[in-house]
Structures are given as structure tokens and as C-alpha cells.
């Protein structure tokens, strides 16, 4: 079919161009699909709603930024592990547990005012996520049980646990027994950084974590350790790096960040604990991390892109009566094209004229 010839060194041009190729290919495919399924509507209108409107309309722009925050936070955490070959697929579960832990602290101190409450809740959220991811780390280190399976199974458990909590101990006593917690009081709510919108302080933390991760990987030994371990575990052992420590670090960090993201969601846009806390951020963040090639600054951009597709896609759904599944199709396609185009960085593509 086709033959791949390795380049002498990674093509710098392609590092920039390949994501653009992917975007263009996705846009073209979207164009073709829209042509087929739309009647009486100009495809250009749909494209405007999908890509441009969220950038030019104040409200949607704020929503775009807001929605990118959890994706960045979780994505940063995951990328650290992925570089090391530690596959935390259950960040969603750690996010839920973090939200429960942090939210429970906020509810415990219901109507107690004080600026110390939010930090306490955040710590609880981080610890909750870390603990939950730690289970997978323990099982992998002690029994070589694959962390993909464990974190995934634990995600289902976490969601059921959330249901048990909001139906029981954390339920609002004056809420007619509906499965929701009380609305958090003022001290337990995240501050908004852009007045009149839902852009919370979590966005600042997201940028902060991204910058920290970038430093950490660039400057610190820690980053080197993770880079080495991922590509060849045996080499790392010889060089004196500890494979077990890497597993623990990776899972604890990604779990902690996911847990924090969960608390941010509960104390921010949601303002309470409900069964709707899980929003697949834990899974979407995996895509965000890959689209950014695990680069901490790149994650900010890929998160914004994915958030754009959600906000724009939702508006397309509302304005043109298109089904929500169309967004999923495009996200899947974007990722396919991106992965495919990525090959252009390391290899030259030529037709294979020789027979096997």
C-alpha cells in the first residue's frame, strides 16, 4: 500500500502543519456530511455557529473558557502518566470521588463562613482523587494488575457511590427527598473571575498547572525520569530510576488533579452534588492530552478546541435541530485525522511499489 520512510529528524514544519491538516480534513468532512443532511440551510451558517460564534459572542466565549478548565486540569495530570506509559483511563472516577470528598467537606460546614473553607474543600478533593487512583497504583505495583482495567472498573463504582451518597447521607434534608445535596453556601462556592459569567477561578488554576507541568518536565529530573521510563522500562531500571515510584507518582498526580477538577465542578458551575456530576471530562481529557501530544502548553489549546466543539456543537443542535451525536462524530473524526497526520512528522509517506 504505502511505505513509510523515517526522516532523519522530525520535520519541524510538520509539527505545526499536521494538526492544521487534520483540522482542514475534519472541516472538509463536516462540510460533506452537512451537505447531505441539511436542507434549506446554508452549510456556511452552520459552520459559523459551530466555529465562529463561540469566539465572537461574549457569553459563549466565557463558556468556552469555562468548559476548557476541567479538561486542562485533568489533561495535564493524565499527560504526565501517559508519558510514562501509565494509562489512567479512570480519571472520571477519580474526578467523581474528588467532587464527593470536597463537596462533603463543604456540606459538613454548611452555613459556616470563612475563607478557609474552599481551600479545605480543594485539599479534600485532591486527596480523594489521589486515594482513589492510589488503589490502581497499589495493585499495579504489588500484583502487576493492569491499571487500565482497575481504573475503569473503579469509575463505575465511583458513579454508583455518588448515587448512594446523594440518595442518602449527603441528601438535602429540606429537598423533598430528591437525590441532590443542598446548594453550597457562599463560602463553599468558587469565586467567579469574570463577572456575569461562569468563568471560575478554576481556569486560573488550569493555566497554572499547565505552566508548572511545563517547568517540571523541562527542568526537573522528574520529567526526565518519566520520559525514560515510558519508552523503555528496562533502560530506566539500569539507569537507576525507579519504575515503581513512577507508577505511584503518575497515578497520584493524575488522580489528585482529576479529584480537584471534580471539586471545582461541584463548587463552581453545579453549586451542589447531584447525580449529574460526571460529565465524561475524565474521558474527554484523554483525547485532549493526545491531541496536544502530551505537551502541557499544547493541552491548553487542544482543550479549547474540544470545548469549542462542545459549545458550538450544542448551538448547532439547538439552532438547526441537528442531533447531538453529530458532535461526537466530528470529535472522533478530528482525532482520527490528527493521529493519521501525525505520522508526517516522523515519516515520509511514499507509495509502496515493491511486493511483500
Amino acid at each position, binding site marked *: *500500500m*504505502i511505505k*513509510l520512510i*523515517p526522516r532523519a529528524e522530525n520535520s519541524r514544519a510538520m509539527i505545526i502543519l499536521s494538526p492544521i491538516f487534520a483540522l482542514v480534513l475534519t472541516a472538509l468532512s463536516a462540510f460533506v456530511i452537512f451537505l447531505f443532511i441539511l436542507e434549506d440551510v446554508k452549510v456556511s451558517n452552520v459552520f459559523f455557529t459551530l466555529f465562529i460564534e463561540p469566539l465572537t459572542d461574549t457569553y459563549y466565549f466565557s463558556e468556552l473558557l469555562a468548559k476548557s478548565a476541567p479538561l486542562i486540569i485533568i489533561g495535564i495530570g493524565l499527560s504526565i502518566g*501517559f508519558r510514562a506509559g501509565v*494509562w489512567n*483511563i479512570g480519571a472520571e472516577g477519580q474526578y467523581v470521588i474528588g467532587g464527593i470528598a470536597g463537596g462533603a467537606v463543604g456540606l459538613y460546614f454548611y452555613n459556616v463562613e470563612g475563607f478557609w473553607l474552599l481551600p479545605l474543600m480543594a485539599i479534600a478533593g485532591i486527596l480523594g482523587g489521589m486515594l482513589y487512583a492510589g488503589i490502581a497504583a497499589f*495493585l499495579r505495583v504489588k*500484583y*502487576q*494488575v*493492569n491499571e*487500565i*482495567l*482497575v481504573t*475503569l*472498573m*473503579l469509575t*463505575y*463504582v465511583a458513579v*454508583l*457511590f455518588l*448515587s*448512594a451518597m446523594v*440518595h*442518602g447521607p449527603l441528601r438535602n434534608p429540606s429537598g423533598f427527598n430528591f437525590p441532590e445535596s443542598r446548594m453550597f453556601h457562599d463560602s463553599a462556592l468558587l469565586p467567579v473571575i469574570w463577572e456575569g459569567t461562569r468563568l471560575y477561578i478554576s481556569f486560573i488554576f488550569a493555566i497554572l498547572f499547565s505552566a508548572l507541568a511545563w517547568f517540571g518536565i523541562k527542568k526537573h529530573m522528574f520529567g526526565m525520569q518519566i520520559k525514560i521510563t515510558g519508552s523503555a522500562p528496562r533502560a530506566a531500571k539500569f539507569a537507576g530510576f525507579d519504575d515503581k515510584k513512577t507508577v505511584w507518582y503518575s497515578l497520584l498526580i493524575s488522580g489528585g488533579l482529576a479529584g480537584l477538577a471534580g471539586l471545582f465542578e461541584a463548587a463552581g458551575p453545579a453549586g451542589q452534588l447531584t447525580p449529574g456530576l460526571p460529565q465524561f471530562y475524565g*474521558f474527554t481529557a*484523554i*483525547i485532549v492530552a*493526545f491531541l496536544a501530544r502530551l505537551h502541557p502548553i499544547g493541552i491548553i489549546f487542544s482543550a479549547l478546541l474540544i470545548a469549542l466543539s462542545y459549545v458550538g456543537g450544542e448551538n448547532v443542535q439547538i439552532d438547526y435541530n441537528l*442531533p*447531538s*451525536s*453529530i*458532535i*461526537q*462524530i*466530528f*470529535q*472522533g*473524526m478530528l*482525532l*482520527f485525522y490528527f*493521529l*493519521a497526520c*501525525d*505520522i508526517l512528522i516522523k*515519516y515520509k509517506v511514499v507509495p509502496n511499489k515493491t511486493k*511483500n
Partner: protein
Amino acid sequence: MNESLFVNIIIGITIASAPLIFAAIGELLVERSGVLNLGVEGMMIVGALMGFVVQFHTGNPYLAILAALFGGMVIASIFAFLTQYLLTNQVATGLALTLFGLGFSAFAGRGYTEETIQLITATHIPILSDIPFIGPLLFSMNPLVYLSFLMVYLVWWFLFKTKQGLILRSIGDNHDAAHAIGHNVVRYRFIAILFGGAMAGIGGACLSLVQVPIWGEDMTAGRGWIALGLVVFASWMPSRVVLGALLFGGITILQLHAQGFNIRISAQYLSMLPYLATIFILVALRIRLKNKTNRTVPNCLGRIFHSTT
């Protein structure tokens, strides 16, 4: 417990397990060749839709199953092309496949949510099926359940009793050495991936053709992920796939019965049991099997193969 309730429970468990057995045995073959395909959920749901649509339009269950098989294969081929020819990261590509499969099936299936079809019903062999107790259990299962057991046997036979199976396993353990000997690594893996897609497709069709005669988006509800877990649980041994699927399906069904029998545990905690049990048993197996070398991960699982010749 009376006889007919017991039989009912067993039959319920097999029907719940069939989708898992198909999807898991397909993925097992794929992983034995060294490829990790996380897109099982996407392939299953496409199979469920294809099976439903063809059954709806033709009423022919054979065509429907073929359609499901085909649908799973087609969508798996995207993954195969990307990972084997364009050398993309398998984890990311598999996730993209799941996302795409879920979106595509939801979109394409929009017009079918208000329809219903004829289910594929259990077989009935005269005389044999009427033997009390054993009859219904052995001879009156759904044909797709029998097919799932057959596929497990065939995969086992292929992997351990044929030359190609040996080659495939060697590719999974050391693709560079296999390539050096002259085996076509890419071709074996490509075909394995297509097989995995076909199996996942039939597994999905078990839902829409056997369990409930309706179509709904996301009706696989995570079973693809469970199947992935089952492969690991089974330590990549075909026989264990059946055990794991029955266990998982069993706990899911038994949890519902427990509620009906008024067992005094909250339903959410009961619902957690299948997932927790999978983890516990996996750990237990690891502890027991620590020293047996033929039950470990295929060495090259997930690693990208690139020939330089």
C-alpha cells in the same frame, strides 16, 4: 429455589453474557497478536445498529447477523489502517474509534428508535429440550449463545492447535523476531483486528436481536469496556473468557434477583459487585499465578511495530 426459577436465572445469565463473550474473545485474539484495541464499545454499538436495521428491513436473522459482523469489521478497519499502516498510538486510536462509533450509530440510528423487530428466540429441539431440568439448560439456549461458545472453542483451537495461531502468538510476544523470521506482522495483525471487529459486532447484535427487540443510542451501556476488562481478567486464555463473562453477567442478573428477594443491601452497592468482583478476582488470580509464565501479558501488547526493511 424451585427448578424453573433456577433455569430462568441460568438462561438470563447466558443471554447477558453472550455479548461479553463475543466481544472479549475477539479482543483476546487481537491482543494475542500484540494490539490493544480500546474501541470495542464503538464496534459493538455499530454491530447492534446494523443487526437491528437489517432485521427490521428484511426479517432475515442470518442477514442481520452478517450485517452486524460486517459493520463491526468495517469500523475496525479504520483502526487497523491507522495503527498498522500509519503507526498511530493504539490507545488514542481506540478511544477515537469508540467515540466515532457511538456518535455514528446514534446518528444513523435516529430513524429506528420507534421500531421493533422479531427477536432471535431460543432453539427448541424436540424431545431433547423437554427433558426436565437438563433440557432447557442444554438444548434450549438461544442460538447466538451456542455460537458464542463455539467461537471461544474456535479461537482456542486456532491459537493453540494451528500453525498460524502459533505464529500469531509469536508476533504478540516478539514482533521483531517474528518479522526477522519472515512472517508478515502487519498482515496478521490487520486480519486479527478485523476479526475482533466482527466479533464485537455480533456481540452488539446480541443486544438488539436477542435481549430486547428495540434500538436505542448507547444501548451497549459500557459493555465494550467490560469486555476489555474480561480479556485481562482471563489472562488472555480463551476458556477463562467464558468464566469471566458468566461471572460478570451472573452478578449483574443476580443483583436484580437479590433486590426482588429483598436482600438487605442497598441497590447501588449491589450494582457495584460485578465491577469490584472483576478486580478482586483478577488480583487473586495474579497472586496464584505469579510463577506461571504462560499466563502473562503478550509482550508486545500496545507497542508499535515498524519494519525497517
